Each structure stands twice: as C-alpha cells, then as structure tokens.
C-alpha cells in the first residue's frame, strides 16, 4: 500500500512517481501498444490526400512549422512513447527509401493495428495475426505488380513526369504554383539522372532557399549557388569562362604552426620586414595570376591590402566560403582544393562557364551563381519565398517531388492513385482469404479491411461520405471489366478534387509502384513487430 490519507481524507503519496514504474503484461501490453500506435496514426489521418489538412507544430524554441508532410510532422512532434517512436521510425524509413507516401504508411499501419485489436479481442493469438498479415501483404504486393503499368517518358517527353510530380505537390501548401515547381523538379532530376543505369544521385541536387521575393521566382540553376559576394564591392560582377582557384589558405602573411618570434632590433630589420610583408601580398596575387586564374575562392579572409591588390590586378575573389560549399565547388568545377599558394598549378584550377553575382530586392543581399560547371552535372534548386516558414515547407515539398521523379526513373512502373490501388488490393486480398484454411484467414480478411482505411480517409478528408463513396468505388472496380484488365477495373479511386470521374487514368493521378509496395511492406513489418511485444516494463524516470 503506497498510499496514506491525512485527517481530511486526502491522499498523499509515499513512494514518489510510483505510477511511472509500471509493468504491463499480456493482452494489456498489446492493447496499450496498439492504442499508442493508433493515436499517432490518428494525428496523421487528416493530413492524407490532396485535401488533407495541415498541422501546426510549435518547437521547443517556439518556432512554428506548418506542414502536412507526414515525416516532418512526426519528426517535430517530439514523441515520448516507445511505440509511437516506432511509428516515427516507420515514416522516416519510408522517407529515406522512397521520399513520398510518408503519411500513407503510418495511416495504413494504424488501421492494421486497429484491425488487430479486434482480432485480439476474439482471442486470436497475436502471432497468428502477424502471420496472417504477412501472407496478406505478400498477396497485396503481388497484386500491385499485376495492376501496375509501364510509364513512358523520355528526355524530351517530360510531360508525364511533370504530371506525376504535380500529384505529389497538389497536397502541399505550395500548390499555387505546382506546375512550375513540378517542372523544376523534373528538370533537376533529369539533369543529374543517369538514364543508362537508371539511377539518380539526389546528392547532386542542392535545394537552397533565401527569404525574399515570391514563390514564383523559384528557379533551377545548372550550377552552384553560394551565399557570398565578391570581397570588394567594385570587382566585376560577372565572369565568363572562369578559371577558379580554390584556396584554403588566407591572403595573409604566413603563420607558421610552430611558435616563433621575429625580433626587430635595428632599423634595417624593420625596413626589411616591411618590404618582406609587401612582397608576400604581391607574390600571392602574382601566383594566382600566373597560373591563369580568373576567380579566387578562398576559405579564409583577406587582408585589406591583399583585397585591394586583387581588385587592382583585376582578379575577382570571394572570401569566407564554408568548407562544404568549397568542396561542392571543387567537385562541380573539377578543380582541386589548394592548401598553399606554392602548390597552385594550372591543372588544379576549376572551370566554370559563367560566374555571376546577383542581387535581390531593395536590400543588399547578394548571391554568387556558378554555372555551366566543367565536371559534374550538379544543379541547385533555388527557392524564394515570403518567409522562412514558406521556404522550409517548399523545400520539403520539392524534396518529395524530386523523390517521385527519381523513383519513376529508377522503375517506371506505376499504379493509379486516389486510393484505387488500395481498393484493388483489398478486393484481391479479400478474395484470396477464403483459400486459406486456419485462423490466418481472419487476419487476412482483417488486412483487407485495413487497406480500405486509406481510401476511406481520403474520402473523409475530401468532405465526401466515406462509407458510401468507398462502397460505390469498390463495386465499380469489380463490375466494369475493361479491355486492359479482363477481370477488374483497378483504376477507380476516390474523386478527391470533385472532378466528376472516379477513373484515375483520366484524372492523371498516379503513384510509383515501388512506393506503394514499400508502404505495404513497411507497415506490415512494423505492425508485426508491435504485435509481438507482450511485456512492457517502464522504469521510473529520473
């Protein structure tokens, strides 16, 4: 008995934080976990789809984020519960692997858990449920493969890619100029894509933003943007065919690492030192000039004298460029980072077709554009927007669009969106369930029901009657056999935008096959993991 009562009958607690030292076992543990997982899914449910709502997140420091990107919401939610953390992980891994569908995967996991709870109440052992889910997920993935279509696009025919990216962007706050952003994303991906190997290195696409201007001013730059300006205000603002010396040594007299002193005790020495110092600056600039550099990019600062000398000898220079940016410039221009002036040679210079300084608005903001670089195909998506929040949200949206474009290049199979794929899978799984003898049958059916949750949420968010709409679409899928698929019509989905047709082919709503498959597999995996936990011991917090 850890509780005593004072004379007024009020309790006072003898062992502090006793309620935190809990142990949950068996069914209770599973139910507690399931409810935790579901409450995370519940939060994201309303963000699904083109009419999904946003969440406002206020960080520990009071910064406000408004987003409907599942991964971002969960990331910033600062979740405490262990199971809830698993769900966060789930959405994150979908983000890493695919980059899109982060909300969908959590919603699906949530509804799988919901179904599992019902089965648990009927006394079905969690392991059997997990196995049934596993079987069902395999059926669903196979079925997805069957209903998938090949998607045609070429380097000159990007329209279809743009359409897909627009599907992704339409659920974001930036949908005002989704067409433009979709085009930028597709062009960026195509610029760095290796169409032979069907691979895209997204590291080559830098997404950068600066506050100011309009969202419409967002642009794609075939090169690198550095948030720096020329070291002297009167240096040329534009350099054609630049030879870039990339230095990590300052334009200053040398500072030997070993401790030393230079003693001046006579006037002659003083004079000599003065000349020497002067000589240093001259030599440095001369060395850069000699190898044929037309632009100096330096990690460190310049002495005033050196700065003026550089200006004077018509050698534009940029100072205080960060290490990461320096490396990027080196990679892009094919130059080498040179740590000492003596080691500067003509081969180590980077080449760029055009370097220019661009100023923005009425303020003194200037950025350096390095374009048409020699070596790599690095591109930068440069986002402009009214405020930081907008830019951050645009960054996330562009990231999603880039991922979608990349996935299409990797694997050009698509399935139709708007919940149509889930409905088709649900029908297939439902049909397959009957073939399984044993308890798994129930779990498989439950899986089919769980798949319905996504179209249901879509319909709900779009202000439609969820059950009515879903059953209508489902019957449509089964009834109308088309020429392409003899048995079913898997293109019918939820008409979120109120266009008037449920045929997703006409609405041009599609998602990548691997994205969908990954969603099903990841959600099933996590649910299996959660179901297998039967004992939760949480220690007191310190």
């Amino acid at each position, binding site marked *: 008995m850890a*509780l005593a009562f004072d004379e007024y009958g*009020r309790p006072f607690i003898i062992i502090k934080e006793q*309620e935190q030292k809990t142990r949950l076992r068996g069914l209770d543990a599973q139910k507690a976990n399931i409810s935790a997982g579901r409450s995370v899914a519940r939060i994201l449910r309303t963000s699904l789809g083109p009419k999904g709502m946003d969440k406002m*997140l206020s960080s520990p420091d009071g910064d406000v984020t408004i987003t409907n990107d599942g991964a971002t919401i969960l990331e910033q*939610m600062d979740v405490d519960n262990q199971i809830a953390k698993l769900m966060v992980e789930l959405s994150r891994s979908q983000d890493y692997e695919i980059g899109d569908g982060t909300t969908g995967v959590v919603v699906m996991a949530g509804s799988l858990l919901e179904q599992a709870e019902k089965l648990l109440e009927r006394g079905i052992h969690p392991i059997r449920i997990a196995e049934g889910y596993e079987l069902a997920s395999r059926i669903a993935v196979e079925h997805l493969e069957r209903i998938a279509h090949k998607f045609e696009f070429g380097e000159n025919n990007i329209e279809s890619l743009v359409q897909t990216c627009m599907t992704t962007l339409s659920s974001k706050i930036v949908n005002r100029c989704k067409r433009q952003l979709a085009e930028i994303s597709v062009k960026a991906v195509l610029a760095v894509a290796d169409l032979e190997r069907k691979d895209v290195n997204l590291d080559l696409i830098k997404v950068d933003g600066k506050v100011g*201007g309009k969202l419409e001013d967002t642009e794609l730059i075939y090169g690198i943007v550095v948030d720096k300006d020329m070291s002297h205000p009167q240096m040329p603002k534009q350099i054609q065919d630049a030879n870039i010396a990339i230095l990590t040594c300052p334009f200053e007299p040398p500072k030997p690492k070993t401790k030393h002193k230079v003693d001046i005790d006579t006037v002659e020495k003083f004079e000599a030192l003065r000349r020497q110092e002067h000589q240093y600056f001259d030599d440095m600039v001369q060395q850069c000039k000699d190898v044929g550099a037309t632009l100096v990019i330096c990690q460190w600062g310049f002495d005033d004298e050196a700065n003026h000398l550089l200006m004077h000898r018509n050698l534009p220079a940029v100072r205080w460029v960060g290490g990461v940016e320096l490396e990027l410039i080196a990679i892009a221009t094919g130059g080498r980072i040179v740590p000492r002036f003596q080691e500067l040679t003509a081969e180590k210079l980077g080449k760029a077709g055009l370097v220019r300084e661009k100023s923005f608005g009425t303020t003194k903001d200037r950025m350096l554009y390095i374009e048409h670089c020699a070596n790599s195909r690095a591109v930068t998506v440069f986002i402009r927007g*009214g405020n930081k929040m907008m830019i951050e949200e645009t960054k996330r949206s562009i990231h999603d669009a880039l991922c979608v474009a990349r996935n299409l290049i990797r694997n050009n199979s698509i399935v139709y969106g708007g919940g149509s794929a889930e409905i088709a899978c649900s029908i297939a799984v439902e049909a397959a369930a009957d073939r399984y003898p044993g308890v798994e049958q129930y779990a498989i059916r439950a899986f089919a029901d769980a798949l319905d949750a996504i179209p249901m949420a879509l319909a709900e968010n779009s202000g439609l009657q969820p059950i009515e709409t879903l059953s209508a679409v489902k019957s449509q899928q089964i009834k109308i056999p088309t020429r392409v698929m003899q048995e079913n019509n898997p293109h019918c989905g939820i008409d979120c935008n109120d266009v008037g047709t449920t045929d997703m082919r006409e609405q041009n709503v599609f998602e990548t096959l691997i994205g969908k498959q990954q969603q099903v597999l990841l959600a099933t995996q996590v649910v299996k993991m959660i179901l297998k936990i039967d004992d939760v011991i949480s220690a007191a917090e310190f």
Partner: protein
Amino acid sequence: MNLDLAKPDPLPSYIYVLSDFLRGQQLFSHLFSSRVSALSFRSTPLRFYLFLVKAELIGWQHIDFGFEWRCTSISHFGMAIERILKDDASEEKGERARMASFVGAMAIADLVKTTLGPKGMDKILQSTGRGQTVTVTNDGATILKSLHIDNPAAKVLVELDISKVQDDEVGDGTTSVVVLAGELLREAEKLVASKIHPMTIIAGFRMAAECAREALLKKVVDNKANEEKFKTDLMKIAKTTLSSKILSQDKEHFAKLAVDAVLRLKGSTNLESIQIIKKPGGSLKDSFLDEGFILDKKIGIGQPKRIENANILVANTAMDTDKVKIYGARVRVDSMAKVADIEAAEKQKMREKVDKILAHGINCFVNRQLIYNFPEELFANAGVLAIEHADFDGIERLALVTGGEIASTFDNPESVKLGHCKLIEEIMIGEDKLIKFSGVEMGQACTVVLRGASHHVLDEAERSLHDALCVLSQTVNDSRVLFGGGWPEMVMAKAVDELARTTPGKRSHAIEAFSRALVAIPTTIADNAGLDSAELVARLRAEHNKEDSNAGIDVISGSVGDMSELGISEAFKVKQAVLLSATEAAEMILRVDEIITCAPRRREDRM
C-alpha cells in the same frame, strides 16, 4: 452527485470526468487552469463530454461540483488513451485547434486594427530590455515586430506579414494585411461553424481573390506616359501614405520631399542611395532634402573647411600605426637609442605612405579606419581634407556616389580611380557640424535631413518616410494607380459579390464571406475616425452600384466623397500585395487542424 468511487490502488494518473461541455470546461479551466489537458469528442447522446484530469489535482475526495457528473478512473477504461507526447507537450485537435488559431490571429488583427487609416491611433511599445525604451508608432510592421507572441497562429500572421516581401519590396500596407487576414478568418470561423469544410472555404477564397485582383486591374489608371500627371499621381500617393502617419501635419512638405528623392533615383529601387539623417532639434517642418551626400563626421583640425572641385580618395587602410603584419614580429632592443631609431623608422614609413597617398593628386581623403594625429597633421600640411572613421556603409556609399574605388594600397596612383565632386563643405545642422559633398558624379544620391523635437518623433518620422519612399519607388516602376479611402475595397467587394451570385455550390458562401471581409476595411477606417461606419459604408455601397463611381470615405469631412477630387490615391502594387498576402495567410491558418506544441526547452535558472 458526488464523486463516489472506490479509491483505486494505486492511484491512477488521470481520471475521466463526464459532464456537459460548457459547464465542465468552465469549471475545470477555472479550477485547474490549463492543466485540464484533454477532452475527447466522444459525445454521448446527452451531449456529455469526457474530461481528462490529472488525478493529483482533484485529490481523491468528495467534491460537490453542483451538477450531475460521474467519474471513473483510468483503470476502468483499460488503457484507453496512451500519452504519446512528452509531459509538458500539448496537442489540440480539430475544432479546438481551429478555434485557438482563429482567436490568436484575430487578436493580432484587432490589436493593429485601430491604427488603420488617416485617423488611426498610435501605440506605445515599451521594451522589456534594460532601459525600457519606449517607441511610439502606428506603423503596423513595427508594432508586430515588437510583440512577443505565444500563440502559434498569431505568429504565422506576424511572420507572414512582416515578411521581407511586404516590408522591403512593398514597404507599406502591413496593417491592412493583418486586418484583412483577421477579417477573413472571422468570416471563415462562421462558415466552419455552419459545417462548411475548410478546404471548400479555401477554394472559395482563392476564386474570390483572383476575381478581386482582376476587378482592380480593370480600374487601374496608368499615367506613365504623361510625366506631369505621373508626378501628381506620385504626390497623391505620398500624401495618402503619409496622412496616416505622424508626418500628416506637414504631409505636403514631406510628400514633395519623398517624391523628389525618389525621382532622383531614376527608376532604381535601391533606397540605399537615399540617406536619412536624424538630428533632434527644430521642428518637423525644418526637415529638408539635400542633393548630394552628407557624412556625419567632422573635418580634422587645421584642414580646409571648403574644397571646390574635389578629388576624393576613398580608402580602407590602417592609418594609425601601420604595424608589421608578419605573425610573431616584435621589437626587442637593448638601448633607448634604438627605440628612438625604430620609432623614427615607423614614422618614416607612415610619412612614405602619406606621400604615396598624396601622389594621387587628391585634396580629400576619406578612410574607413582611424587616422592618427601624425598622419592627420601631414595631411593638414598638404592642404588635404582627411576624414577618419567613416564607417563601412559610409565609405561604400561614398564610393558609390562619387564614383571612386575603395583603395587599400597606394603604389600605383595612375590606376586608382578617384571620386569627384564639385564642392565639399562643412555645414551646420542644429548644433552639429556635418560634411556635405555636393555636385557628386552620380546624381542619384541624396540625403534627407529630418529635424524634430525628440528621438521618438524622429524615429517615427523616419519609419513613415521609409514607407512612403518604398511605395513611391515601387510606383515609379509599376505606375498603375488606384484611388484610396476604401475605394479599391468597395470595387473588389462588388466584383466578388457578383461572382458569388454566379457560383454554384458551397464555395459561393466563402466568396460572399470574402466580400464581407473586404468591406471591413472601409468600416475600420470609418470607425477609427469616429464616424458612423454602418451609415457610411451603406452609402458607399450604394454609390458604387452606379457605373464608374469614385466614391470613398472622406475622413476629414466625415462623409462619402469623390476620391479623384480629394486626390487620394494608392499604388496598385501595394493593394495587390495586401490582397494576396492576406489571402495566403488566412489560407495557411485555415488549413491547420491540429496544433502540437512541444515541451518548451528547459532553461537553467540563472540566479
């Protein structure tokens, strides 16, 4: 009924209380302030709600709440709800979240509402920092910037509004944005309450905003071709902008000043070349525009006070001791004589440097860094005006206006570009001596010297003038002009109303609401002037139903007047930005259906 439940063991952390919504919420929020953390919306047929209360707060005892309520411990619910967030974090969902954000945004709007229009009131802002400095202003952006806001939605509005776009690129209309966004949300709240989905409202708002923009576009006047007319347009805009500010007493004077300054820029929007110097003393009327550049520095002693046809060298170089920059160098001597020698050498070095500088054939030398007495004396001997410690902005601007380059080495006099100006002289403003460079090469630069009774007045005057300059410089580029005084809002409202009538579906409600929100702006202007807004707005609406009406609110006479006769104009660009930013802000807040606040970062108590 009283709390009548076997005391569970152990005591649960939360209990649920079932009560009807209003009373429950009132009572609990009163009793436990914000610690009543949740209510789930599983309302029973009797419209009872579940309240989640921390058990410690109640203390397991008999409490008579005076109304029907039941209580059940968490164990009775099983583990129905798990806390998934950290302890101090909070989560608000659905209606409550929307309510919280609406209320927050509207509070901000109401706060700045009274500053709108020519008869708007000022606010005193007292900073919490040391000194408790006081600012008196009616500039929306300044007020919003100084607020410490906790409500996330309000923060969105402020952030969106004082965003660079509105302040840097348009410069004015910040108050209008907030007021319009607030009104839009107020209307949206009603629509949400009548069960219209926020997404439908957003769709309607978008259509309405587009329609309003087009209505304005149809009515714009562009006088770019006619220079005389264009200048009067600019004057009108400047006067309209200034009339709501502290400068309204002398708006004629300042409007002329601002227009002159902006016309000198010849289409560039770079306001850096317009320098504003504030000098307390005198009255606002004594403020003046000066062509050329005024540097707030003194001329060295013994140097000429007036130079004609000056050749100026702008430099950034050490003129104090010009030390040896080689790392680790130090002087070590063994006798006094040697110290003297080295000192002489140092002096010699400085003398050489000065000689080199003089070799440029200059008669004015401006340095960013200090100039010590010795070189200063040398300059004085050579009859050269030497100005020290001109800060970085100062020399960059000077280099810009005089056309010289900023030099740091002086070995090649022939290749250094010098700056030129017709006349350098020392002038007195109030009690301060300043240096004036007139007849500079680049005719764009000019200086506005503001005079006024106190720092507060001067600061406010500067902000007002800055707004006016921004608007004017934008208008020079985009010369489309509209009437002011609530005229554009009425035009937009009329067009939007018509759209609402022809739009089928629920969206038309939202479009109608948009038009109501637009009318709120003239209403506020009238209210702030202490006029009968309902009467005036109704008359205004009737006027606008005629073709090509120029009617707006004439605040001075307190009636509906013809804006073209009164000369009240506004820039199209500002109005457009107000319309679009406000719609965007309202949309952003409308889209939110959940607010998650993370546990605030714990700060170490510093005592």
